[in-house]
């Protein structure tokens, strides 16, 4: 092959990927065959019996785990609130970093998830507030064209429901998104939005009525 090329072309990369995929697959199977399952299971069983939760569940690992499990659903949630995916990703990453910093106070994944949701909602709100200020400033065109190339949401963004959702007042939109999109319970929504359950009910009901009206008008 050619001599002094430092960064290989992607075809080269693809070929190497294939080699690596196949080589490691073969080796994984070989290593797996030599595994002492009984010993591993024994060790795990002992750990389970002794009550789990090792002290070294560090903030780092916790964040990584929560990130793997919830990143995308939180981005979707934020994206519906702030209406564009790159901003939504920023909002969610900020929330994770804040959670990482405050890990000493949380220390458990249920609480951490509630915290993350609330942080995402709060941060989305401040993004919207900031945007409102920018939009009132006449020099700039309103930045409400979502960048379409962000796969996850494009499908949704096309739908009439999302369009109608965007026209709802902020609190109603939040309540509906959390209820029907993020699938939270009334109590969880109340916690995430820092309002009472009664207020959640009324926001949801009024939002739904407005949505219904908007969609009927359209069809």
């Amino acid at each position, binding site marked *: 092959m050619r001599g002094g090329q430092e960064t290989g072309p992607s075809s080269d990369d693809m070929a190497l990927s294939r080699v690596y995929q*196949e080589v490691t697959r073969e080796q994984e199977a070989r290593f797996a065959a030599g595994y002492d399952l009984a010993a591993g299971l024994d060790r*795990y069983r002992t750990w*389970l019996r002794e009550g789990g*939760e090792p002290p070294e569940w560090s903030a*780092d690992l916790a964040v990584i785990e929560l990130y*793997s499990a919830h990143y995308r659903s939180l981005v979707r949630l934020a994206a519906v609130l702030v209406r564009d995916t790159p901003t939504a990703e920023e909002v969610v990453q900020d929330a994770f970093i804040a959670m990482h910093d405050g890990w000493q106070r949380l220390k458990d994944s249920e609480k951490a998830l509630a915290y993350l949701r609330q942080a995402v909602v709060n941060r989305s709100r401040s993004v919207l507030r900031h945007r409102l200020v920018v939009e009132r400033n006449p020099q700039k065109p309103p930045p409400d064209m979502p960048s379409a190339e962000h796969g996850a949401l494009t499908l949704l963004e096309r739908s009439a429901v999302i369009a109608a959702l965007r026209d709802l007042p902020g609190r109603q939109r939040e309540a509906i998104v959390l209820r029907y999109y993020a699938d939270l319970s009334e109590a969880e929504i109340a916690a995430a939005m820092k309002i009472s359950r009664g207020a959640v009910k009324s926001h949801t009901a009024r939002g739904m009525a407005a949505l219904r009206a908007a969609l009927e008008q359209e069809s």
Partner: protein
Amino acid sequence: MGDAKISPRDAAELEACFAAHARDLFGFACALVRGDRALADDLVQSAFEAAARAWPTLRGLAEQQRQGWLRSTLANIAVSGFRRDAALTRRLPMIEVRYRQIPDDPPDRAFSSIALERCWRIIEGMPKRQYTAALLRWRLDMKEADIAAVLGIAENTVSAMLYRVRRTLITQLGPDHPFMGNDAEGAAS
């Protein structure tokens, strides 16, 4: 705080999950850490400890998704051990990438097991950091910039290491290295 006991029902389910997936996961871990079985054992244990904490979510998943979760969690734990001191902020986006991209479907079997075995000997014999960088690049599909961040080294260094790995494979395998023929246009000159 840290003393939440695992219920007997969950413990039984977790044991079943361990019995079903530990072997596969151990193989995956061994390849990640260049055949260090003791370390692989610890990684498997850590992944299942994580599974116990995430069990409320995991128990609802299909077997295959659960396997995917275990593999990516294990890779995350292994990689966070590789890293020297990359800031968390820089690691977050690639953790997601890694999570998404760990490939599950075997490509069509194209190379003979003899060729694969020879490849493995060469790969296995590489210096540790080259081994790790190459594996992150071509097994876990990470970008060079992300690998640099995880390993706490400069991106140029990563490029140079990957280049060396490529050269090593090509020179040591000689004329019949398996990625030459598939790729006549891109690779031949």
